[in-house]
């Protein structure tokens, strides 16, 4: 950046914000994306709490279908083990038009889950027309009046603070991983745009052409024409014109006429291009 201040110039983005949280977003009816950060503090707490068990723990996302319930007990739940260095994941869901939230936690042993953070709730869009066919029609006047003056209050981003959970290396790994150092994304995530592989056989090529530059000088202020085209004359009397050179014989006629139109001069010649103009 061409900034006036060298300090403004620095565009470092933080690796993390030191806050344990997981955020869930909808990508489309069948895919969601979650990203998270586990703070150093949380990681150390986990290490203290789990001790030896931490090394055998797996970082897990529990995808909860919250469509039918408000509480903490979810009817449907899917667990996805993710790479300990991952800090985001694309989550495939089979059923559209559902509400989901995701728990980030550590799974140890058979099914012991330690919650690290719970995400916001999202709702995926439906695919296809709605099954609801009860039409409601209102007058536009009533509709546009209905919400008039109503002000809704919205809170800030619902990144939920970590539920404090109570083994050292593992914890550091998690903290590092969430710091974006070795960010690993979902192996089942949407495919990245792939670059075309190097073309196996090199396609060597050449393109060449020629143009003609007609130039000269005369008394400043003169009128100059080159093959019928008026050419501008610089204040020192010089002129120059560039002309594409097709195949054939091309007559060049340069004429100059003094500013007072009393004097004139003419120079002429012909240029011939005989080679076929191929390669274009």
């Amino acid at each position: 950046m061409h900034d006036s201040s060298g300090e403004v110039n620095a565009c470092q983005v933080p690796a993390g914000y030191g806050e344990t949280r997981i955020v869930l977003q909808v990508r489309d009816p069948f895919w969601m994306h979650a990203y998270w950060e586990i703070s150093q503090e949380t990681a150390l707490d986990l290490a203290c709490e789990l001790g030896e068990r931490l090394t055998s723990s797996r970082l897990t996302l529990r995808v909860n279908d919250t469509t039918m319930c408000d509480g903490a007990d979810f009817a449907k739940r899917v667990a996805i083990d993710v790479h300990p260095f991952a800090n985001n994941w694309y989550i495939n869901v089979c059923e559209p038009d559902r509400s989901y939230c995701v728990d980030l936690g550590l799974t140890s042993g058979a099914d012991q889950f330690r919650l690290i953070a719970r995400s916001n709730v999202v709702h995926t869009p439906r695919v296809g027309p709605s099954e609801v066919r009860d039409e409601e029609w209102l007058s536009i006047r009533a509709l546009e009046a209905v919400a008039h003056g109503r002000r809704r209050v919205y809170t800030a981003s619902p990144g939920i603070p970590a539920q404090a959970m109570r083994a050292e290396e593992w914890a550091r790994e998690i903290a590092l991983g969430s710091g974006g150092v070795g960010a690993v994304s979902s192996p089942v995530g949407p495919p990245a745009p792939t670059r075309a592989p190097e073309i196996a056989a090199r396609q060597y090529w050449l393109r060449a052409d020629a143009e003609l530059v007609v130039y000269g000088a005369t008394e400043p202020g003169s009128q100059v024409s080159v093959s019928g085209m008026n050419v501008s004359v610089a204040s020192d009397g010089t002129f120059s014109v560039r002309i594409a050179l097709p195949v054939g014989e091309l007559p060049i006629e340069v004429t100059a006429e003094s500013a007072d139109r009393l004097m004139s001069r003419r120079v002429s010649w012909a240029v011939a291009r005989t080679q076929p103009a191929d390669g274009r």
Partner: protein
Amino acid sequence: MSEPKGYLAILLHAHLPYVRHAHGDAYLEEKWHYEALTETYIPLYGMLARLAAEGVPYRLTVSLSPTLISMCRDPLLQERFSQFIDGLCRLAELETSRTRWQPEFRETAEMYLERFQHVRSVYNDALQRDVVGGFARLAGQGRIELITTAATHGYLPLMEVCPSAARAQIIAAVDYYRRTFGTAPRGMWLPECGYYPGIDAYLREAGVRYFFTDAHGIENASPRPRYGVYAPIYCPSGVAAFGRDMESSKQVWSANEGYPGDFDYREFYRDIAYDLDWDYIRPFMGGCPARTHTGIKYYRVTGRTEHKQPYVREWAVNKAATHAGNFVFNRERQIEHLASVMDTKPIVVAPYDAELFGHWWFEGPEFLEFVIRKIAYDQNVIKLITAGDYLDERTRAQVSVPSMSSWGYMGYSEVWLADCNHWIYPHLHMMARRMTQLANDYVMPQPDLVRRALNQAARELMLAQSSDWAFIMKAGTCVDYAVKRTKSHISRFNRLYDAIRNSDVDHELVSDLESTDNIFPDIDYTIYSASPMASAILDT
């Protein structure tokens, strides 16, 4: 004209991200703006003004993004554009000489010279450099309905987790529109047609009557809309939603099946910048060290071949007329059919990126002119209308909640949320959250420098949120620039945040950033708070 059977609402959405590098001398990306002025905005304005002067009846909707308006009104960019168009006229002049013995190109070279000189004279004389004012006059004459879009074209569905940021994008846009045009916008174009249920509540709060979604946003609404996309629905919040008609969109949009790919039209990619001697071209590259488009292109699409044939203007214009005839004919049949099955007058909504016309599709403005004339004089089945006018004619509407959607690839958010760009969201969301906390914590900031720092933080957040950056990262061209822009706004925001929190706001930092990222001079950071103050701004 007898009573029409239905309506066609053509919408042109004009937007560019805010690119202004006051201290740079050669920013390739600033050329986006100059090229769009030369090829799209000024020619479109000229065409619409000419039709208005001739008394041809028409009604179009034009969305001018707040970032684009800001650039069009910026004196530095105005001066730079003036230099740009002068340079282009000089190059076109040289081209008319250079093609002296190339009859297959010379007429086209002369056409460019004439066009660029015309653009220059419209810009300097008719518009007095005020392009936005030109469109405002057309709106004043009842020819176009001007609407707005989110302040920096932030992609709203990916702000669902930080609603205060989505709301601020809308409120700031409406406020800026009011300051620019002196009236409130009736409608809003949601960036990338990106909608999620709930965003309408902010539109309502900002006084916006209607917005647009992609076709499936309406088709998948609930309860199921009786007329599909051919009549607006009302969200329970009291804001109307219009759905895009896919048939009319595809005919114009699709590069393969659509009109713009016709073999007679001008080929976009074959620019003289890549064909001619570097020494000759270099003075017109605006200081950029590499070859970039000049806008002078001599070939037609020709076919699926590298061996392009010379452009023949007459054929291209004739083709634009043919295509316009086809377009209008199809709309007539479409509306006749719809009218036969609907008990209310159908509306076909056809939104396009304005830059398609003239920039990508060189003959686009001519096509549009033919469409307008044919609808005005050659038929009486359809009538051009704006969404706002259509609502004025209605008395009843169906209540339904549109479905989350966008007009991006596959219809949702996968363009803006992908492996190559998802790294931006932890930052954007944290910034939004911090901005909201700042707005709640600093109600009467003292000294004034702190207020300025808060306003600047809001600008940095908004600039970082432009959907263009994520889009460019996904599209794969100019990625470095998009990454750099995103990172610099994140970093600038965080510096301001830390300074404000540590009560260590430095005059130099604030002043530097104010002049570097100078968009929205009247922005008020309190739009990020949930206090009544934000609403007060809207009521003034």
